[in-house]
């Protein structure tokens, strides 16, 4: 049979992010894939060199719309290492807490996307509804649903009250209940198991050769997690299991992520019950002495690494970021081989490539007075209905 080349992208076949595949098909079967990346390259590394450390703090958090705390923590850790700063314990605990909340929101989001990609939209609706619980907590703690801005050099910017901690504990109980249900769905729902099993296989040996990271690696039996192997923040003071399975397929990646949700609840409970009192930050000079540091962080999608080189001024000499998705790209291309074209969306989605999430409140500036008003969900919805009505679309 003749081979057919199908271009897919730059609009993402599964998610809301641009990348371009050239899929070579024999009938329905994928026999080769080439990938063009870079459509989202925003030159953040260069921009960091041209700005001060304080400005970079905000910029680096915007590398990713989901693991924003991962990037910001990874970056401040590197700068703190160069500056030789001892971060107060309470701050490390707060960083860990926000990091795990971020993992919960990211994994629940992934579960919904995966459900959607296989036509199981009820799962998508359920898990995204439950995700709102953790989004509300993050908004309560930091003021934002994403891009929390909680980190600063030498600690964190906001303390957390006892009442807030109690609220989180309560939410963890609800989420744990819900996650048990998802585990039940994942292990008993026959359509889901059949659709995901033996799809996008990645043997353990390939993970080791291609240096895949995160849940992708752990679902192929590779026991690798920066939180345990190279502990940062408060991870050496909590106990947790690194979830691994030997399924080596999309189904395994699902099991790992739902399993990790349960571990995150446990980590958060330990963090809250052991949270030390004390200061939340120490002062760090604006100029960072000459030096270099390499920092690692287990983001929801896997290992995130930052390298920072300083030159004694208030601007870094070099900032290098490697987000987990880039480490999994080669593995993803391998996973696609010999599967059907129809499996491409779920296989691609199963590495959980990163995409941006949007805010729910909108602020409208009145041009005449310069004052602003906040629209809540209800009035935003009303506004959109009226906007469409004016365009002649009936509701």
């Amino acid at each position: 049979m003749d081979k057919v080349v199908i271009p897919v992208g730059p609009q993402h076949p599964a998610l809301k992010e641009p990348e371009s595949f050239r899929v070579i098909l024999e009938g329905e079967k994928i026999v080769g894939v080439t990938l063009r990346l870079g459509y989202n390259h925003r030159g953040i590394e260069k921009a960091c060199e041209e700005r001060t450390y304080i400005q970079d703090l905000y910029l680096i958090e915007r590398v990713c719309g989901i693991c924003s705390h991962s990037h910001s923590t990874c970056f401040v850790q590197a700068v703190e290492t160069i500056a030789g700063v001892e971060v107060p314990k309470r701050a490390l605990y707060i960083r860990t807490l926000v990091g795990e909340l971020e993992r919960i929101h990211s994994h629940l989001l992934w579960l919904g996307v995966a459900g959607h990609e296989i036509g199981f939209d009820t799962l998508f609706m359920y898990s995204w509804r439950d995700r709102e619980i953790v989004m509300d907590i993050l908004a309560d703690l930091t003021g934002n649903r994403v891009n929390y801005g909680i980190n600063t050099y030498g600690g964190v910017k906001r303390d957390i009250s006892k009442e807030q901690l109690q609220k989180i504990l309560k939410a963890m109980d609800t989420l744990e209940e819900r996650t048990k249900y998802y585990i039940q769905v994942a292990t008993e729902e026959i359509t889901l198991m059949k659709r995901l099993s033996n799809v996008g296989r990645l043997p353990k040996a390939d993970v080791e050769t291609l240096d895949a990271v995160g849940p992708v690696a752990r679902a192929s039996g590779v026991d690798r997690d920066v939180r345990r192997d190279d502990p940062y923040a408060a991870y050496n003071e909590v106990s947790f299991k690194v979830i691994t399975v030997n399924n080596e397929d999309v189904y395994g990646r699902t099991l790992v992520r739902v399993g990790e949700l349960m571990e995150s609840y446990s980590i958060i409970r330990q963090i809250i019950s052991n949270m030390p009192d004390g200061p939340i930050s120490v002062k760090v000079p604006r100029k960072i002495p000459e030096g270099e540091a390499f920092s690692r962080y287990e983001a929801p999608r896997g290992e995130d690494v930052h390298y920072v080189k300083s030159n004694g001024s208030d601007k870094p000499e070099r900032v290098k970021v490697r987000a987990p998705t880039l480490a999994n790209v080669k593995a993803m291309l391998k996973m696609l081989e010999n599967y059907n074209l129809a499996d491409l969306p779920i296989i691609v989605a199963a590495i959980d490539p990163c995409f941006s999430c949007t805010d729910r409140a909108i602020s409208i500036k009145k041009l005449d007075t310069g004052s602003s008003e906040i629209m809540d969900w209800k009035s935003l919805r009303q506004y959109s209905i009226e906007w469409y009505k004016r365009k002649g679309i009936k509701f």
Partner: protein
Amino acid sequence: MTKEESIQQELIKNFNFLEDKIRIPKERRIFVDVSADKFEEVLKFLKEKIGFDTLCTITGLDEGATLGMIYHLTRQDGIVINIKISVPKDDPKIKTIIGYFPAAEYYEREVVDLLGAKVEGLPEGSRYPLPDGWPDGQYPLRKDWKSDMLEKEDK
């Protein structure tokens, strides 16, 4: 002796030219400077003999007259070794390491696009991460390249 120090000893034992080229600034972090012609030997040894079998990434640096390349390798126990080589900027040739670490492909394409390194042995393939119409000879992560050059070209 800590694990990091025993790695240092092991390296010096096998490569005496590394005698004063190894730094251990903190737990689980080792920095090594090596000359470009000895790099492959050291890399091979680290991977095959002392278990640094995972490549995190490659960082390219503009150091004025030279381009620096740092290869960040890790192993299971969380230790990271950062091996740095320098090559002259007017002839920035490095050899590909995809034979040892296939994952290096995208990282090597990145230093080609952003710093103008010439990677010998890197197979043909689409560039990363700059767009197809990017002007030749402009390497954004070099220090003489400023981001306002981009804005001028747009006008």
